[in-house]
């Protein structure tokens, strides 16, 4: 008993001290706007998505705090208040993320949260954000179920695009490019993302070009890394086009192994997330590989004052071109800033979360990817177009570029409110406005 007491006292003291030192000062108390940033800092998604998005977040937040972001974002920080961040690792699964989100809301008392790459995390966070009434901007996750399951959101917004758009855009690009397209094969990571992507793409391509045959559907395990048998199966099935929503190391390994075995010599492959490895392929991807950036981001971002500033600043700080996750993070931060400042009316105050939610709903704001309209999911989902193009590597300059880019407007590739992506595709894209 005596021994227990001797340990208990210092432990209790240490705990009390730790709690005391870490108890956050609320934003209102320290006069700063506190934002929780959640992205992958470890795990396989950190390299291709987490690190670029965190680099993008740091760059934009620092520049905002210094008042160096071009118009219309000249006001320092968010509404004149310095932005401070609480950075959280997204790795660890949905349950851990819900716990971390509650920590951000209740312990760190953040004014808003920006984050989430994994669709599973987004689906778990959205109802908790509504319960805690915390402004939450989802910058990357693409699941179509987000606003199908959360039908009447108030505090949850997504400035990234729905994944269905990636695949509808890819199907349209392949048709419009005039390639031979009588058969198509698929290789997807065996989890919800891969299944959903292939479901949307195969439905869209069959709708746009009836009679297209599916030769094989490969579903290797996530992070498998070795695709020898899958590449043989794809070669044997002799498709005209191979569709894949692979990302990260899996995508790079598949392209390297497939190219070394001549898989892409006689057929086209389309990688919906390909742009995230544009500078990493280093000539190991074949010229003509069709790649996307999950929206008008990264190498597909239109030239404007904001995108030029962002590219230049990112290059000088990270010594590489920003890929689409960096653009998407920057877009989410600018969207939040625009919404808060619209709600506040005058500089130097933090508006109530209800006010921010009201002003974010249906907001139109300028971004590094052009004008963003929150015009889907009753004003909670961004509406933007998508672009695809062909990978082209120049061995002399050791640089990759994108050729034959074609863009599709948001209205061309996005289902209208009140219908699911699957139903919209099945019905033949009613109301789609394509140029």
């Amino acid at each position, binding site marked *: 008993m005596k021994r227990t007491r001797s340990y208990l006292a210092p432990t209790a003291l240490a705990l009390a001290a730790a709690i005391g030192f870490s108890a956050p000062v609320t934003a209102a108390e320290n006069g700063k706007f506190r934002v929780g940033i959640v992205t992958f800092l470890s795990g396989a998604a950190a*390299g291709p998505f987490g690190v670029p998005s965190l680099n993008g977040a740091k760059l934009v937040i620092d520049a905002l705090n210094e008042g160096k972001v071009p118009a219309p974002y000249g006001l320092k920080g968010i509404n004149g208040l310095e932005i401070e961040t609480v950075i959280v690792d997204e790795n660890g699964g949905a349950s851990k993320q819900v716990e971390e989100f509650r920590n951000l809301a209740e312990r760190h008392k953040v004014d808003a949260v920006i984050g989430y790459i994994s669709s599973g995390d987004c689906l778990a966070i959205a109802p908790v954000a509504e319960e805690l009434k915390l402004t939450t901007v989802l910058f990357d996750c693409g699941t179509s179920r987000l606003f199908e399951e959360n039908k009447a959101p108030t505090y949850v917004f997504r400035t990234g695009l729905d994944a269905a758009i990636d695949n509808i855009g890819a199907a349209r690009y392949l048709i419009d490019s005039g390639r031979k397209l009588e058969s198509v094969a698929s290789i997807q990571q065996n989890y919800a993302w891969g299944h959903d992507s292939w479901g949307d793409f195969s439905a869209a391509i069959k709708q746009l070009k009836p009679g297209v045959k599916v030769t094989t559907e490969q579903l290797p395990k996530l992070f498998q890394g070795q695709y020898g048998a899958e590449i043989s199966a794809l070669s*044997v099935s002799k498709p005209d086009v191979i569709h894949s929503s692979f990302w990260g190391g899996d995508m790079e*390994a598949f392209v*390297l192994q497939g190219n070394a075995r001549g898989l892409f010599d006689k057929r086209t492959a389309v990688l919906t997330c390909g742009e995230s490895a544009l500078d990493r392929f280093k000539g190991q991807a074949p010229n003509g590989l069709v790649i996307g950036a999950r929206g008008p981001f990264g190498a597909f971002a239109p030239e404007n004052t904001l995108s030029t500033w962002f590219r230049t600043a990112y290059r000088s700080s990270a010594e590489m071109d920003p890929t689409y996750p960096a653009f998407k993070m920057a877009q989410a931060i600018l969207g939040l800033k625009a919404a808060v400042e619209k709600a506040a009316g005058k500089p130097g105050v933090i508006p109530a979360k209800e006010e921010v939610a009201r002003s974010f709903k249906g907001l139109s704001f300028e971004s590094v990817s052009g004008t963003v309209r929150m015009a889907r999911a009753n004003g909670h989902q961004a509406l933007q177009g998508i672009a695809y193009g062909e990978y082209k590597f120049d061995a002399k300059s050791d640089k990759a570029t994108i050729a034959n880019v074609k863009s599709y407007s948001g209205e061309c590739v996005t289902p209208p409110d009140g219908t699911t992506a699957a139903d919209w595709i099945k019905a033949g894209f009613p109301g789609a406005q394509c140029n």
Partner: protein
Amino acid sequence: MTTLYAILIDGMIYASWLFMVAAGLTVIYGVMRILNMAHGSFYSIGAYTGASLVGWYFSGAQGAPYWSYALLLGAALVSGVVVGLLIEQGLLQFMYKRDEILMVIVTYALLLILEDATKLIFGVDPYFTFQPYSLLGRSEIGELTFANYDLALIAVAAVIGAACWLTLNRTHTGKVLRAVIQDREIAIAMGVNVKLMFAATFVVGTTLGAIAGALTAPAISVSPGIGVEVIVLAFAVVVVGGLGSIEGAIVGALLVGITRAAAVHLAPQIELFVIYGVMALVLAVRPQGLFGRDLARKI
């Protein structure tokens, strides 16, 4: 016909990789009775050191590209020996008399520590050092094209398998090791330096893991978590073949590799299930694995 030989060649390539990954695990268990959960970390360390060194070599273009293969092997040997020796001498040697289950927990803790240490040292950005993979070119076999690097791995795995088997069955050291495997206490009584044997075996096991990682690195994008991914597969192979048996690991790898390749070609929907299906089937018929021995329990 094309599908048939594709299954055989793909199966052989995958099996050779599986064997290289599993060989170190089965050697360590066979001699030391340690189910080394940290084996995946040695694979990962080999992959990272190999990829880093080859990346550095090609970024400077210092010499002939074929030297990159020597660098891969050198990186694996150095990292496997150094890390293996540090762990065996610094931790495991103090725990040899503990229960096998406790050693599983110890090596699992080691796996978590090494995973984080790898991230701290090498960062979270993937390493993409493809040059040794592309350098060997490709060969056409019938309608299909294969990367020569993958075909070369079959030969490397055969050399590793033969070296392990010959060492265990045709050398004096092998005889001593088999004595330790049969009965540790009697071996000590006969004057065998079991501590030295254990240290050497652990280092050989970790180096085999590191070699597998280093030789895989040029074909993949080396990223955090690759060690955890392979450990499950390695366990499946050694459990099918029988824990501690080199012959078992060879047959287990072939069985799993060819069955998986058949599933990918004929029924891709069940590819994920088929590896564990084979394992469950073998365990149902022979719980000790195909080459595992029934052991009399000492009282």
